[in-house]
């Protein structure tokens, strides 16, 4: 369980760092910080809920997916500035929220594993991340992309969502094969979580005061 706990507590590292860097941040970085703080609160609330009630914390997972998706959309909206029309972002936000509502209230409900909705989130965010990398290549302005917040954020999301995609897309494999298989595969998710939050921390380390 050490790996799973590490994955759980590592969320605190970028969240604390974000608080220290808040004054240096631009608008999209501040939105990202809000996401990190939400993740910490949501994870701990879900953990306490499970400890107190002995029930699954999937409702917290559902809320987490929606909030994570919407805030990341907002972050990328700022990163793309004017190059993607506002309407596209609105459609992406409302469309996903409607599917999320349908999944929660008419599909599996709060207590089912949010597989499809998470897979959909992964696909949309992977497309956005790929588009951002293409934008970076097209603009030809950043000589050291590895020294920017935006690069590490996109790299982290690309690694996490591509690595986890099988887990989101084929959950039956994991859920029907028994507890041991579930735990073994969940460790992969934990490793990817640790990787993601480590990369988020690196991204925040590159937050610098912007000169006007």
């Amino acid at each position, binding site marked *: 369980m050490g790996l799973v706990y590490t994955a759980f507590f590592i969320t605190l590292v970028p969240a604390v760092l974000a608080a220290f860097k808040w004054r240096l941040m631009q608008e999209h970085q501040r939105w990202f910080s809000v996401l990190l703080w939400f993740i910490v609160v949501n994870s701990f609330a879900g953990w306490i809920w499970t400890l107190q009630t002995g029930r699954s914390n999937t409702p917290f997972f559902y809320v987490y997916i929606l909030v994570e998706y919407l805030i990341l959309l907002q972050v990328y909206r700022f990163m793309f500035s004017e190059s993607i029309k506002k309407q596209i972002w609105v459609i992406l936000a409302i469309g996903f929220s409607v599917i999320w509502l349908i999944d929660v209230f008419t599909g599996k409900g709060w207590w089912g594993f949010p597989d499809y909705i998470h897979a959909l989130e992964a696909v949309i965010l992977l497309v956005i991340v790929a588009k951002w990398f293409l934008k970076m290549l097209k603009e030809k302005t950043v000589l050291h992309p590895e020294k920017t917040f935006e690069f590490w954020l996109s790299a982290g999301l690309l*690694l996490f969502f591509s690595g986890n995609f099988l887990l989101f897309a084929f959950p039956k494999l994991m859920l029907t094969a028994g507890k041991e298989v579930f735990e073994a595969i969940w460790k992969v998710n934990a490793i990817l979580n640790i990787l993601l939050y480590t990369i988020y921390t690196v991204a925040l380390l590159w937050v610098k005061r912007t000169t006007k």
Partner: protein
Amino acid sequence: MGEENNQIVLIFIASAAFVVLMAILLILFLVIYQKRIVAQENKLQKIENERQQVLLKATIEGQERERKRLAKELHDGIGSLLSGLSLTLKFQKNKQTPNSEEAHFFEETCRLVDEGIEDMRRVSHDFMPATIEEFGLITALQECIKPVNNSKALHVQMKIPKTAFPLPKNVALGVLRIFQELLQNTLKHAQASEVVTTLEFHPNRFRMLYTDNGIGMKAHEMDSHGIGMKSIQSRIQAMEGDFSLHSENKDGFAATVEVPINHNEVS
């Protein structure tokens, strides 16, 4: 765990690891590719800047050559013609009965021609001050401020160090033109009573600090849209120097010109 479950876990882990590895390789490729194309872009930009620099230098040199030619044409051509005309008119005037209508006519005509000669000399001198070629920057600057100080409209003070040395011709001419431009701005817009110019001669660079005590410039007037400012910036760029302005409303105006000196160009 059963054999089948082991296989499921193994396949899952292997697939996830493969995908992550591919993502890492993709990210590495993006970083390397981005560095390459940006470096190439910067190199092209540098070449383009150098080309622009050469073009700018050539344009300014061409302008100065043309000014010199015009100054010579004015001085030697029209100037000689007007001097001859003035002499003839004076000769004719002396032949007239004093205080006659004709004598007054010739006297007035002589005065107008002399005024024309003086104006032509001034224009010719502005086109190409002979002093800068013969005596260098400092004498040319002093000559430039003499009429302003004589007019009492403005007091121009020039602080020249004892360690001053001759500058390359292109730098001297560039600095003189910038000074003329700044002085014109002060005269036209600043409502100033005093200008102080300090010259600094360092081994490898020259610096001129120009200040006036006028009404200053608003931020939007300091941009590069004015022809005068554009001309200053072009000359600074051609000399590969630096130019900075500082101005607060009603708190005067200050400009700093800094240019590198290549001693091989001193002539």
